[in-house]
């Protein structure tokens, strides 16, 4: 054999090696999703029949509130895939921001904490009964949707705004709004700026690839104010530049501005959020299209935290209420009565696990954004509907 054919054969060997490497990928990589071998789905390899089934089933959507949805009903092929993958993997992979104090933040000891993080833990508690079975994957704004679309993460809890384009074209489902927010503008207290017009000719720091960036352009062109955007890749770069005076103002969701001002900037008292709102920003966990069961799970875990606050069930009294309560609504929520959990593909006590280990919405809020914390944000719209807010859980029935 001539040496010239050497590369051919070595390449073949290499291809074979690569193939085995890829095949070994899921087992080799601890963070990888394990494809459930025996599943309702068409299996990992054949993808083309999936498409056709999707089209069929999309026409018969089950209304979210109807509890009679039966698991045996012919479902889209993705149905149940995510939960099965999560359960066989043994932990939930949750995409978070990772740079926002109060929402998701990595402390020097290497632990994540925050509002978004707690919803991930609540989800883990609902699935495994153990809030610690969750792996946090910090995501950049650029990759956040792609990693969700491609199944690298199971759920994205990363202050993401619910919009039409994202809900449709990007193939995402917004489970529920956990935080009602609006876009604001932060300036230094000594600047004396109070309106958009004051920023004429100024520079505004904004994060790349966000709805914020678009809203800013809209608002400024409507107000007829000329400005220069300084666009950065991540939270740290954006507010780092703002803190150094590279920009006259920084814009983002008001919650983020407060979180950053209080948690990241060296002189927290020298920054004010202007008294104007550029847009509506409903933020909440996101899942991908194609697995309605998973969508339902995330949705109802969030609603369970709302309901928990409404009924006054918290980490402190959950166990006691579970044992003593006669209230049918409480009993259904906590899984003493009925089998709401089973219908979701979980255990009946999923809501109990959430409320007992992570807590209800009010607790999660107080823990991360409440008055005692450095990142205090008044609850405002994020109060129960009974207290003038927008949080309203559909009935657990």
């Amino acid at each position, binding site marked *: 054999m001539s040496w010239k054919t050497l590369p051919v054969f070595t390449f073949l060997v290499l291809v074979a090696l690569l193939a085995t490497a890829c095949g070994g*990928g899921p087992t080799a990589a601890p963070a990888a999703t394990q494809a459930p071998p025996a599943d309702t*789905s068409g299996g990992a390899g054949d993808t083309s029949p999936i498409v056709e089934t999707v089209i069929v089933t999309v026409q018969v959507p089950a209304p979210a509130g109807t509890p009679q949805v039966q698991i045996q009903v012919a479902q889209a092929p993705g149905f149940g895939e995510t939960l099965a993958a999560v359960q066989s993997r043994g932990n939930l992979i949750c995409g978070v921001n990772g740079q926002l104090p109060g929402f998701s933040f990595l402390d020097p000891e290497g632990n994540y904490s925050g509002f978004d993080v707690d919803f991930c833990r609540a989800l883990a508690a609902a699935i495994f009964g153990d809030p610690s079975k969750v792996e946090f994957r910090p995501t950049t704004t650029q990759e956040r949707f792609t990693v969700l679309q491609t199944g690298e993460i199971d759920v994205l809890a990363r202050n993401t705004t619910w919009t039409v384009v994202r809900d449709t074209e990007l193939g995402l489902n917004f489970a529920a709004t956990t935080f009602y927010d609006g876009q604001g503008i932060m300036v230094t207290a000594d600047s004396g700026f109070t309106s958009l017009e004051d920023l004429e000719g100024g520079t505004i720091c904004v994060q790349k690839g966000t709805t914020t960036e678009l809203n800013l352009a809209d608002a400024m062109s409507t107000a007829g104010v000329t400005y220069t955007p300084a666009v950065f*890749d991540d*939270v740290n770069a954006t507010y780092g530049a703002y803190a150094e005076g590279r920009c006259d103002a920084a814009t983002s969701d008001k919650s983020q501005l407060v979180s950053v001002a209080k948690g990241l900037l060296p002189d927290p008292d020298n920054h004010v959020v202007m008294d104007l709102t550029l847009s509506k920003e409903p933020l909440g966990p996101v899942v991908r299209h194609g697995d309605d069961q998973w969508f339902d799970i995330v949705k109802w875990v969030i609603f369970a935290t709302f309901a928990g606050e409404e009924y006054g069930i918290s980490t402190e009294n959950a166990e006691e209420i579970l044992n003593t309560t006669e209230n049918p609504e409480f009993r259904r929520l906590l899984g003493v009565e009925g089998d709401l959990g089973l219908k979701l593909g979980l255990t009946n006590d999923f809501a109990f696990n959430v409320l007992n280990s992570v807590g209800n919405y009010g607790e999660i809020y107080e823990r991360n954004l409440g008055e005692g914390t450095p990142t205090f944000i008044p609850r405002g719209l994020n109060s129960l509907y009974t207290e003038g807010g927008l949080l309203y859980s559909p009935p657990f029935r």
Partner: protein
Amino acid sequence: MAEEIAAPRQILPPPAERYTWLGWIQKNLFSTWYNSLLTFITLGLAYALLKPFLTWLLEQANWEVVEVNFRLLMVGQYPPDEIWRIWLLLYLLAAVVGLSWGVWVRGRLALALGLLLAPLLLALLPIATPSARLNLVAMDLVAVAASRMGRLGGPSLRRFAAWSWVIYLVLVILVVRGFALTPEVMPRVPTNLWGGLLLTCLLTVVGIVFSFPLGILLALGRRSSLPAIRAVSVVYIEVIRGVPLVTILFMAAVMVPFFLPSGITIDRVLRAMVGITLFSAAYLAENVRGGLQAVPHGQFEAASALGLSGFKTMTRIILPQALRIVIPVLMGQFIALFKDTTLVVTIGLLELLGIARAVLAQPQYVSYQREVYLFVAAIFWVISYLMSYISQRLESVLGVGER
């Protein structure tokens, strides 16, 4: 063998020129009017640049941020209970380096002492904990012992020393990842906890180990007379060399999951490694091709005349010569690879630079960019410089490029 045969007559160096120090200054700094002018300009420039830097370094710089976050910068979120594995690997590294030194280099006392001094200097740093100091000193002892062993074993250990490197590189990955014998012993450390300098080094090592064979294959493919293979190699090399590494990394991070069947995902550190490897292989291929071209054609003919098969001609005759020629270029390529690993911050991995940026997000250290980035730059500088210095010395020791 060649050295023994061609032991040349000793060529005496020309007599050293001797100057008084004043004479030296006159010769080297003020030989002509414009040289004097240049000297003054340089002095002025150096003063203008160094003075503010030194005043900052000595008076204003506050290294507390580095001290507090030292572990984070070195190993990221790697579990503290498992850090002994890193030490183990460092010990092994010291042993392998010592052994190789004893087998191949010997002598070169100054250089050896310099290498041994490095851990000792690290141990003297105020940041080091007592146990770290102990470990660093012990590492030196291991290295010395290993080099003694290598010396005693001499050339008979050559094969062993070469293989020990290969085994070591495989061990690095295994030990860092853990192989989960039992849940308690060597548990898996998920890649999302790998970070800091550790991740930088891992990315480099993997990039070097895997891009090397791939690069050689591509170089051979480009020189192949089979048009299909040549075309594929050329297209691969030119496309990869034509685009920035960030786009390849971005593709590896964002696009690869699209290419895999649904349900299968590859770990993202692994994906970054694949991206770096594929990128580096294209550059390596061009370097190796240069070496292949430099091997005189007579070598092919001679091998052919001896009746060697094509495969044997390549592996026994041509490649060893070609690779020997390009060792300096390859070392340069590896250093570039080491520096290029910083680009993984664009896909959100927390290697040394990424961790540095994360550290700077801690509210109490927001405005310590100078300290943190200078520290990071210093680490990169020292390691790259060491790599290039050692490669230069080894070239001269091994007589690369001379024959």
